[in-house]
């Protein structure tokens, strides 16, 4: 059954039941005893009584002959009573036909009645019943005609007027004469007393207004409809959805929204229908207790029965009706989105996934929730939606797009680790990811930012090799050499930057790449090429943001060539073209270094005084003071220098990020360690004590801890120092401690075996003050701590970070050597040997680390029973590194011991003796070992 046919049915039955019931209730109530006479033998009065009795007792077949006989006997009555009798017969005959379901006969007989009595006593009911019969035949034109005639009468009873209007409106509604239907239906809604009729009229009126697109009128009417049970009519709800769809299609989203919004969900409709059915049944059951007349009870019973049938049919239809809830919410969300009401849209999209995660729309809805959140610039929410999608639909249509977008968001938020994680997960789940190259780039870039440079290099390399047509190829071609640059692989960096500049002449990276090429050349020690590149850069990009850096690089190059004048000139230009204080700092401090080489200490003081004047708010004032103080000391104005230091500490020492103060403290500690006991030192210590008290009084915790560090480390007396250190090394001090205090706390706690505090102190320094020059020492300290704790891999990771971050520093060599130590402790001798060999391969690390590394390589071999190889390494120590006495001594002993192990007793003796003969070794501990060995071997030293 189509929706409209179904609606026809349900709209008519209940109402018609009421009408018929109402009319039957109006029948005369006179009763007469049944006579055992034929109709021909009965008088008119008897016929009347018999007919009336049949009607009253609902024995319509018995009443019909009596009625016919009355009509036959009164063909043209003159008396009023006879006329009334005739009218009674002519009206009730078709009524009985209706009850016996002979509708055609009823129609013909009503026609006769109305012709004979067009304004008779029963003409109103008759016309309504005629209209009812036409309605049952779906002859809607005739319903209109009949009811219109009735409505044209002026003095019609209000209740019948409402019924007639209802039938009239319904017929016009069925004929799709929407415009004509509206007026009578709204009249019924407003004037009707029966809530069921009102409700059905409201449904039809609403649908008519919708079809007419009389939207503003509809919205005036809708709130009234929603105060009746019509709101739960499924036909109305469907019409609203259709109306909403139509407005949506026309781009009239405001109206679409208002039409979609009142629609009930299918479960809600079913629930409401269930409730109405229960209520109707309850009312029907209570009728017999109501005390009403039996006729009324019967007519109301019929009404409720018809209503129940209608509601049951609605419920059945609603249950069978396809699901629309998800589609409805989707439409609402889309409408909100079209209206730029994105919060509402997003919540509704998401609710589809929440409520029906298995529904076919759930995936698209969640994707739309994600994109809507993006439009809202509600990043946290968008990420949540994105992750919900990725988790719920790993094989989803939008998985690739969402994963890429989420990765991009993390990148934009500088959440590098999250970007790497989601990127890798997406590529694991979808190995053939359509946007693999883009994801690779995001992952690579994030690795780069995380200083995971080998991984970054791999990602950029993959794009270059596997996706040469990708739109991120150019990016990869730039970042690949950039990564080489940061890995200090200058040769491939310069080659690839060179290729880049040849290939991408219009690239947005062109300027950057030109500058980076110079850096790579500089790193590759090709200063000539670097100078040319930077000079060209300076000419080609006079407005570049990198100009200051290029000038500083030129300054560095000229300084290295001892062209100090040119160097200062370029540093000065660098400062003038500086984009930020970092550039200013670099130029200023490099100029100071050149001045230092030139012995221009006064100029340095002047330089930094000007610097402080100009950049006091943003510059590195503490570092400048450090320089000034040092220069004053070097100019022989020691007192002035110390005053500069101490006043600098006092003024800037309460900010943990003034790292120059830490340098001052560090230098002062070193200075105090070397200075002899004197009045000047006593004065210094006194001044220090006063400042320490002052900082306590002022509750300047950071300053206090810095001064305490200086004070403790300046103590000559070990007990005093120990007491002060005990005060410093407290967990509560971690919060306010500046880098110098943290480093001291870490070192001191390590030596006191307070590993928890040591780890926390180093950790805080590295995590919060990683830019401090003291971070290197903290990394080493923490690495050593890990090694002691048996956390070898953590130690190695940290040492590797030190090497990559401070490649030029001697401590990097130390870190590399300690990697070897950790591996050796783990008995991973082959890897340990490689680590030590790395130390030996770096020229900059030449020094005590080389003989030590040789010694440990030998030791690795010895531990594996490889005495020949071990001997060869031990021997190289005292042959090649005579200046490193401790290692030479160890080398001799170890060599001789290897000889013993190889049963070359003579050679062993020769080595012990040779060692004992070397005057530079006579004060070492190993001399005793050698003498004892000779004794053990039965020889005298």
């Amino acid at each position, binding site marked *: 059954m189509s929706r409209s046919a179904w609606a026809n049915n349900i709209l008519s039955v209940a109402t018609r039941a009421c009408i018929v019931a109402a009319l039957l209730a109006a029948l005369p109530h006179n009763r007469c005893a049944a006579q055992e006479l034929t109709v021909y033998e009965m008088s008119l009065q008897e016929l009347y009584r018999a007919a009336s009795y049949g009607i009253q007792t609902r024995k319509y077949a018995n009443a019909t002959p009596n009625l016919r006989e009355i009509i036959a006997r009164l063909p043209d009555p003159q008396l009023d009573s006879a006329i009334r009798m005739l009218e009674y017969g002519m009206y009730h005959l078709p009524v009985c036909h209706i009850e016996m379901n002979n509708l055609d006969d009823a129609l013909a007989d009503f026609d006769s009645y109305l012709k004979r009595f067009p304004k008779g006593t029963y003409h109103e009911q008759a016309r309504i019943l005629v209209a009812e019969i036409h309605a049952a035949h779906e002859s809607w034109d005739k319903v209109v005609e009949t009811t219109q005639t009735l409505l044209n009468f002026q003095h019609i009873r209000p209740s019948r007027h409402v019924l007639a209007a209802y039938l009239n409106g319904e017929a016009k509604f069925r004929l799709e004469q929407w415009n004509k239907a509206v007026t009578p239906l709204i009249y019924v809604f407003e004037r009707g007393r029966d809530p069921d009729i009102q409700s059905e009229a409201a449904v039809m009126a609403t649908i008519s207004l919708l079809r007419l697109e009389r939207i*503003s009128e509809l*919205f*005036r009417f809708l*709130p009234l409809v*929603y105060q009746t049970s019509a709101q739960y009519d499924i036909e109305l709800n469907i019409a609203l959805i259709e109306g909403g769809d139509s407005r949506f299609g026309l781009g009239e989203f*405001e109206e679409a*929204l*208002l039409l979609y*919004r*009142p629609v009930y969900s299918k479960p809600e409709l079913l629930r409401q229908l269930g409730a109405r059915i229960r209520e109707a049944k309850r009312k029907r059951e209570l009728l017999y207790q109501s005390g009403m007349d039996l006729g009324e009870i019967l007519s109301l019973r019929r009404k409720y029965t018809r209503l129940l049938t209608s509601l049951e049919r609605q419920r059945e239809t609603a249950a069978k009706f396809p699901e629309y809830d998800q589609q409805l919410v989707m439409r*609402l969300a889309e409408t*909100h989105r079209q*209206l*730029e*009401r994105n*919060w*509402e849209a*997003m*919540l*509704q999209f998401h*609710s589809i996934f929440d409520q029906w995660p298995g529904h076919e729309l759930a995936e698209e809805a969640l994707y739309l929730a994600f994109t809507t959140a993006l439009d*809202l610039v*509600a990043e946290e*929410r968008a990420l949540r939606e994105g992750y919900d999608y990725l988790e719920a639909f790993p094989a989803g249509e939008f998985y690739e797009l969402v994963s890429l977008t989420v990765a991009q968001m993390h990148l934009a938020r500088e959440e590098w680790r999250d970007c790497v994680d989601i990127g890798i997960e997406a590529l694991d789940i979808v190995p053939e990811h359509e946007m693999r190259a883009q994801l690779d780039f995001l992952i690579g870039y994030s690795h780069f930012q995380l200083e995971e440079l080998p991984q970054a290099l791999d990602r950029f390399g993959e794009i270059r090799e596997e996706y040469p047509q990708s739109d991120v190829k150019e990016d990869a071609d730039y970042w690949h050499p950039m990564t080489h640059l940061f890995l200090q692989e200058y040769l491939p960096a310069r080659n690839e930057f060179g290729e880049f500049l040849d290939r991408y002449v219009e690239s947005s990276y062109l300027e950057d790449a030109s500058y980076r090429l110079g850096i790579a050349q500089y790193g590759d020690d090709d200063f000539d090429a670097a100078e040319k590149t930077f000079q060209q850069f300076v000419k080609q990009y006079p407005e570049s943001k990198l100009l200051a850096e290029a000038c500083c690089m030129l300054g560095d190059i000229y300084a290295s060539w001892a062209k100090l004048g040119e160097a200062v000139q370029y540093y000065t230009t660098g400062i003038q073209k500086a984009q930020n204080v970092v550039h200013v700092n670099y130029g200023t401090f490099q100029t100071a270094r050149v001045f230092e080489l030139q012995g221009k200490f006064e100029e340095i003081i002047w330089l930094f005084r000007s610097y402080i004047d100009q950049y006091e708010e943003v510059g590195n004032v503490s570092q400048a003071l450090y320089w000034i103080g040092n220069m004053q000391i070097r100019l022989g104005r020691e007192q002035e220098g110390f005053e500069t230091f101490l006043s600098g500490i006092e003024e800037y020492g309460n900010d943990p990020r003034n790292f120059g103060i830490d340098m001052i403290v560090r230098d002062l500690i070193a200075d105090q360690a070397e200075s002899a006991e004197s009045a000047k030192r006593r004065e210094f210590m006194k001044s220090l004590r006063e400042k320490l008290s002052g900082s306590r009084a002022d509750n300047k915790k950071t300053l206090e801890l810095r001064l305490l560090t200086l004070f403790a480390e300046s103590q000559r007396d070990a007990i005093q120092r120990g007491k002060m250190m005990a005060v410093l090394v407290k967990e509560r001090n971690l919060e306010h401690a500046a880098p110098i205090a943290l480093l001291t706390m870490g070192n001191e706690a390590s030596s006191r075996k307070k590993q928890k505090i040591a780890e926390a102190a180093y950790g805080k320094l590295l995590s919060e003050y990683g830019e401090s020059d003291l971070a290197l020492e903290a990394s080493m300290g923490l690495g050593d701590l890990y090694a002691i704790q048996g956390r070898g891999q953590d130690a190695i990771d940290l040492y590797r970070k030190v090497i990559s971050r401070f490649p030029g520093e001697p401590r990097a060599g130390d870190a590399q050597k300690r990697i070897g130590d950790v591996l050796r402790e783990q008995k991973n001798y082959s890897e340990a040997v490689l680590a030590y060999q790395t130390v030996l391969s770096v020229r900059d690390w030449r020094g005590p680390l080389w003989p030590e590394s040789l010694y440990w390589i030998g030791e690795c071999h010895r531990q594996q029973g490889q005495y020949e190889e071990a001997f060869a390494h031990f021997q190289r120590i005292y042959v090649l590194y005579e200046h490193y006495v401790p290692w030479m001594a160890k080398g001799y002993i170890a060599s001789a011991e290897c000889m013993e192990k190889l049963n070359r007793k003579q050679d062993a003796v020769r080595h012990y003796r040779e060692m004992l003969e070397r005057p530079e070794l006579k004060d070492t501990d190993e001399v005793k070992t050698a003498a004892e060995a000779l004794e053990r071997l039965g020889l005298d030293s």
Partner: protein
Amino acid sequence: MTIRRPALRPYVIVLICAPLISVTAHAADPPNVQVWLDKELSWDATLVGRTHSGDQIRFLRKGKEGEVRLDVSDILRVDYNIKTSRAEVMNLYLREEYAKLKNLLSAELAPANGFLDVPGNLWPLHLVYLKTLYWTEDFAGLKKYASRILRKPPTRLARDEATLFTILALTGQGEHEETPALLAKYKIRPEAITDPPLYHLAKARVAMAHGERNEALEELATIVSFHAKDFEWMPAALYDSATLYMARGQPDVAIQIAKELQVAYPGTTWQKKAAALQSKFEKEREGGEKLFQHMGQ
């Protein structure tokens, strides 16, 4: 010799006894409550008052002699004889006849005034009363009434809803400092209260008061998206979201919502308020456009 005291004249007796009569019920008084001691045991009674310490409730049981005193904790609930029909209350409420409704409710709630801490059948009326105070913007009255309930809330529901109305009263008065703490205090679950949108509106108001525009919009959008058929809080949510969209720099959206309010709630206060809002927004938008044009020139 004894001196005979003069008899008091009748009107003096009336004057002296009047206060007693007003607070003291007698066994002869018709019972005004049904006292439930558990789910199955109840008796009709007349509420007499509280004991001096206030810990116990005093009743007169129907057909029994003597007063019964019960701790509040001994009573499951006390149901009052409500004279006003629900339809009558709703009718006045829907027609926004708040003054009449306030009088009606005051009379209906009066017997329970001293017994707000006792659970009973009056909470729906208290709720309507609170709403009436809110819609008439009597924030001081609302705060006072809600705080009386909060002194010893009879149920968790009453506590939660009175808390939310306190928040609305405070934000209405511009006293929003304590509101986040108040909102967090009882971990109110919107699904456990009578009107879930009330929770979202209160949360939105707190967020608005603290300049958290996105959070506020999310709460309001929750009402608009999932409680659109709610005739009380939905228009309030739309109204607030219009102001927030305006503040967000989306005047077209704000105006569109103001228009929607007028269409969807004809003949209500919201229609008038929304019309004023629309006109204000249109002026502001025009001003903004002029400024933009001026800057362009």
